């Protein structure tokens, strides 16, 4: 069992927890992920590590509440325990030799983009961050990004905060103005697809952090497969970072929809359970 040390709601559908896992906190690098299960009967949920506090042995993960399993996880309070927490999985993000970079985060993906930006800053790089959200209510981690970025652009789809539109416009402006060693993309598949297209003409190294459906996360089940440059790759052992110009985003988007109906049903089931509990 692994104890939840702290829990904080970042917005109505995004929660941040710190889990006690000293060995993982010691070993984890930016870009790696964990798989956790809230309860003994729960689903295995892959979540990218958003930060570590080595002194306290704490690993931070941030999750969006999408289906039954993340609902169960969201109901756990600080001090309670979760059944399983395994990691650090996947390869760390490759930041070697990068002196000047753009980090693009979308929605809850910002949670994953942040440690990459932080790591680049630690290594002394010039870091420009661009983070996009649906609207003002969904904005997360603004201060944290500001602390590790030389410039920060914020966009919202509806213009209720920052610049109106998506991350592509500020990304393009940055690329037009100066040359960069690398662009890191973390966010919804559709965002990464278009951001990759935006970066393409500049010939800059563009890295996408992929988060497909997973089960084991160790290279056993094959469900995390992704087509990259025409080859089948496994995100959990070969990734999660891949050359964004080679990733088949359309296929990844299609594969991410495998269990949509099930998730909707699970949400429904949970809500009914919840209603029952509330009514007594």
């Amino acid at each position: 069992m692994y104890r939840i040390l702290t829990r904080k709601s970042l917005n109505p559908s995004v929660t941040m927890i710190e889990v006690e896992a000293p060995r993982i906190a010691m070993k984890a690098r930016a870009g790696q992920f964990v798989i956790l299960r809230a309860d003994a009967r729960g689903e295995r949920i892959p979540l990218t590590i958003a930060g570590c506090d080595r002194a306290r042995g704490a690993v931070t993960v941030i999750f969006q509440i999408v289906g039954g399993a993340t609902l169960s996880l969201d109901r756990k309070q600080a001090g309670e325990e979760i059944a399983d927490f395994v990691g650090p999985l996947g390869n760390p993000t490759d930041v070697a030799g990068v002196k000047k970079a753009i980090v693009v985060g979308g929605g809850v993906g910002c949670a994953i983009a942040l440690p990459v930006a932080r790591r680049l800053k630690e290594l002394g790089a010039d870091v420009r961050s661009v983070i996009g959200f649906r609207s003002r209510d969904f904005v997360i981690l603004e201060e944290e990004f500001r602390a590790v970025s030389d410039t920060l652009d914020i966009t919202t789809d509806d213009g209720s905060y920052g610049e109106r539109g998506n991350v592509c416009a500020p990304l393009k402006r940055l690329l037009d103005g100066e040359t960069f060693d690398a662009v890191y993309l973390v966010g919804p598949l559709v965002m990464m697809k278009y951001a990759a297209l935006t970066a393409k003409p500049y010939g800059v190294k563009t890295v996408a952090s992929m988060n497909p459906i997973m089960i084991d996360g160790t290279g056993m089940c094959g469900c995390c497969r992704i087509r990259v440059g025409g080859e089948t790759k496994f995100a959990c052992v070969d990734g999660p970072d891949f050359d964004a110009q080679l990733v088949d985003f359309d296929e990844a988007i299609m594969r991410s929809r495998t269990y949509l109906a099930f998730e909707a049903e699970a949400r429904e089931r949970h809500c009914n359970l919840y209603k029952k509990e509330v009514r007594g």
Partner: protein
Amino acid sequence: MKTFNDRATKYPMPVQDPLVRSQNFEEVALGYDAETAVLEAKRCLHCKNRPCVKGCPVAVDIPAFLGKIAEGAFEEAYEVISRTSSLPAVCGRVCPQERQCEKECTRGIKGESVAIGRLERFAADHHFAHTQDKPKPPAPNGHRVAVVGSGPAGLACAGDLAKMGYEVTVFEALHTAGGVLVYGIPEFRLPKKIVAREIENLVSLGVRIETNSVVGRLYTVEELQEEGFEAIFLGTGAGLPRFMGIKGENAKGVFSANEYLTRANLMKAYEEDAETPIYRAKRVAVVGGGNVAMDAARTAKRLGADVCIVYRRGREELPARKEEVVHAEEEGITFRFLTNPVEVITDADENVVALRCVEMELGEPDGSGRRRPIPKENSEFELPVDCVIMALGTSPNPLIKQTTAGLETGLHGEIAADGEGRTSLPGVFAGGDAVTGSATVILAMGAGKNAARAIDEYIRGK
């Protein structure tokens, strides 16, 4: 009293009715009762040259344990098997006996061989039904060994070392120990409580099991050595599922058998309130002909689908255990032999609507000695299905290799080890599917036991 039973065929194994069992996940084969076991054991001729023992990969003293069962000395029969096998209740259920001990059995020359596998299972089940006592840890010898992976190879290695007094820690990546025995082989063929019992016994022997521990990530092999483990056994299993590389293969309704079975077995996705989803298909094509294909097909059947197995060679070449093929057929699963998929056809939403296949014929023998299937011209046809499960074998997982400097691997990336499990690194041993590629439970178990012996020698010799 007549002690020899000259019946020509095996005593039939009582099974759940096919119509009933194809709707549930309970064990199919119910096991012999004591009376039948004694009668079946008496079919052994106790012939002089004991060919069955040579047919067994770990050389269980088969005539001796059959003799004990024939006498009604069931516990002693179990003890005989235990001298050479760590997992009799498992192997009795899942070994391909028809290709090992039973193939060589002299009784089998005329009529059927003795039902050695069923009797092994009987002895083990009888033991567990009648003994409550747990094994006790022996006096510790002060040496520590790490075992990576808790499949049959790791379990056997850990068990033997613990019995010699070693302090053993098993590191397992998943949240439950057992390897393929828990996530691959379904409940209806190998009840999970049998695996759990084997693991409880290890724990009683003093073995520590650390689940959620991926070696290569949480600890590297080198870090384990630094932490004071004097030897390390790698039993990490077969690795990543293979795909065919055909068009449409990454569509939503296409799964590897490992994924499909893990959802069902490890995550219990078939249970009403499971959080883990599993694709509820109506018509499923399973591609492949091994045990993995049979298990995936029979699982899909139990989840309500019509299932067809597509295999590129003929019935005679099916690598699966014969009993599983028979059970699958009884459960209403159909087979398309000499058939190979060429494309997964999807609709506009990328849902699977059919599997396009080509008929095959057998040509010249290939490297494996089997006749190589070659496509027949103009024989393409479509199987209307909404789900395809690929059971085509595995290729090695690169994780340990990538994170362990100096560890040599073979042609395809499997860990290179000699017959005793010694790798290119001193103090690092390996065995089971991680070394051989997908093989069998008994071979993995045998490799674990051999390595335990070699590890003991290594540590004593230091």
